């Protein structure tokens, strides 16, 4: 996007009662859509992998969405939290501060929370507490870093095994001490984990999806076809994906030729098109 033709402006944002969280707010010339808040993709700071959060924020601002990208406590440029609250509470609290900062800056009182990888999960956690959230966008959700769950899902990622076992280079790395043996062990361990062991986590996720759907919040789930997040989703949904989609409140999309981090510009644009279609459909319906 050319500096001469931009129809948005960007400002740094200090968030929270102690202004300890740092973000960047991208403001459209005219606000005519809900505000979007993007949550950190894993441990990466607010620009996102391959700078995709920055690009999405600017493209969406061109369409009238104010967008805040901010760093949760301990990530990016934000301070480490002194709070004793548990993870879920802290994510909710910090997201609520971010929403308050956006309301103060541009008056928006309806929000779409979004994120990639762990950011997707955090968006779901925060949204389930916040009635002002009208939409949740989850890209390649990978759930909380529970060892059992990660090992269980990744062991059953057959696409991974197919790619790895039939690649001579991988065997060479394995036999010449160049493989990631820790990861391989973790995946193998997953074969010995029973599904019951991960159902508690799945039940909690399903309950949160149910809360959102009953409240009328729309959910967009986007998976990269090559990514393990599809397998996470299968486990997490507990066979209720079709039921949720039938309510009209959950949309599940897949992008082919797209890696976990949305590296290519084509995949970034495809996601944006999906977002806009979904958001327009939600607004028409409401």
């Amino acid at each position, binding site marked *: *996007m*050319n*500096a001469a033709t*931009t129809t948005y402006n*960007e*400002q*740094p944002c*200090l968030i929270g009662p102690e*202004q300890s969280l*740092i973000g*960047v707010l991208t403001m459209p010339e005219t606000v005519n859509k809900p505000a979007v808040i993007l949550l950190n993709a894993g*441990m*990466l*700071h*607010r*620009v*996102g*992998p*391959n*700078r995709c959060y*920055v690009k999405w924020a600017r493209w969406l601002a061109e369409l009238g969405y104010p967008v805040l990208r901010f760093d949760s406590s301990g990530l*990016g*440029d934000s301070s480490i939290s002194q709070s004793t609250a548990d993870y879920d509470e802290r994510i909710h609290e910090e997201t609520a501060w971010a929403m308050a900062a956006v309301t103060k800056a541009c008056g928006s009182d309806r929000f779409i929370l979004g994120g990639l990888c762990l950011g997707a999960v955090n968006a779901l956690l925060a949204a389930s507490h916040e009635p002002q959230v009208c939409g949740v966008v989850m890209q390649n959700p990978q759930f909380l870093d529970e060892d059992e769950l990660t090992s269980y899902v990744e062991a059953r*990622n057959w696409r*991974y095994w197919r*790619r*790895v076992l039939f*690649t001579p280079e*991988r065997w060479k790395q394995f036999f010449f001490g160049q493989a*990631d043996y820790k*990861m391989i062990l973790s995946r193998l361990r997953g074969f010995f984990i029973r599904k019951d062991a991960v159902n508690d986590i799945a039940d909690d996720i399903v309950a949160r999806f149910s809360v959102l759907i009953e409240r009328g919040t729309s959910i967009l789930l986007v998976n990269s076809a*090559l*990514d*393990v997040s599809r397998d996470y989703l299968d486990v997490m949904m507990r066979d209720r994906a079709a039921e949720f989609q039938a309510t009209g409140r959950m949309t599940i999309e897949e992008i082919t*030729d797209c*890696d*976990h981090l949305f*590296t*290519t*510009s084509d995949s*970034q644009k495809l996601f944006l098109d999906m977002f806009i279609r979904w958001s327009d459909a939600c607004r028409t319906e409401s």
Partner: protein
Amino acid sequence: MPLEPLFFKSGERSLFGIFEPAQRPCKCVAVICNAFEPEHVGCHRALKKLGERLTRLGIDVFRFDFAGMGDSSGDFGRMDMTQWQTDVNAAVDLARRRFRCRKVVLLGVRMGATMAALTCASRGDIHAAVLWEPVLDGATFVDDQRTVHNTPTPDGILLPPIKTDTDGITEIVGLRFTDPLLAAFAETSLADLVWPPHTKVQVVTNMADASSPRVAELLAAQDIDFEHIHVKSPLVWIDHEQVPGAVLQAISEWVQKQL
């Protein structure tokens, strides 16, 4: 001390930066140049930690993002080397005004180090410079990105093959290179760099088989106050989850000694 994020002007562009005031009376300001995309995001955490160490030693810190990278304005593919050198100059001038410091230490990582070195050579007022894993030339940087693009992820996933589209754009790991930008990278090199005699310099290398040791050799051959330290450490521009404590310690101790 609270951080002060801001946007500031560099030519036509608006750059993002963060001031981090020193925790005790200040001796100088360190201006930190992050790596170029796509390594930028991986280096962010380590450079933040480096900034924290320096502020504890009584050094003001200013970190900024180059135009077309991080939070700064513009698209990578629309930039050029002149803009990126203007960015370093603008950051140095702003940091010096904000902190009212005469002494400036310029730090950079990967292509950020390359740009820092070129800036040191072109202006005579930098007290000391730290070049962390500098890239000898732009062509090497582009080749490195091609290698990353063509290497499967730990999950065995490969990006689509590199190709040039009808608009003349070559996309490599999501970076959209125009032909003029590729040419600008090809022309950028530290090989003929003449280091200003009064500017002290430390080169920190992590990779024995990269171009950075060659930069160290070139500087060692010049009559300057120079240190080269090789630290075997995680490569943060590839593995962002690691914090290379030994590298950060080596840099902050050297900077402190120069004051």
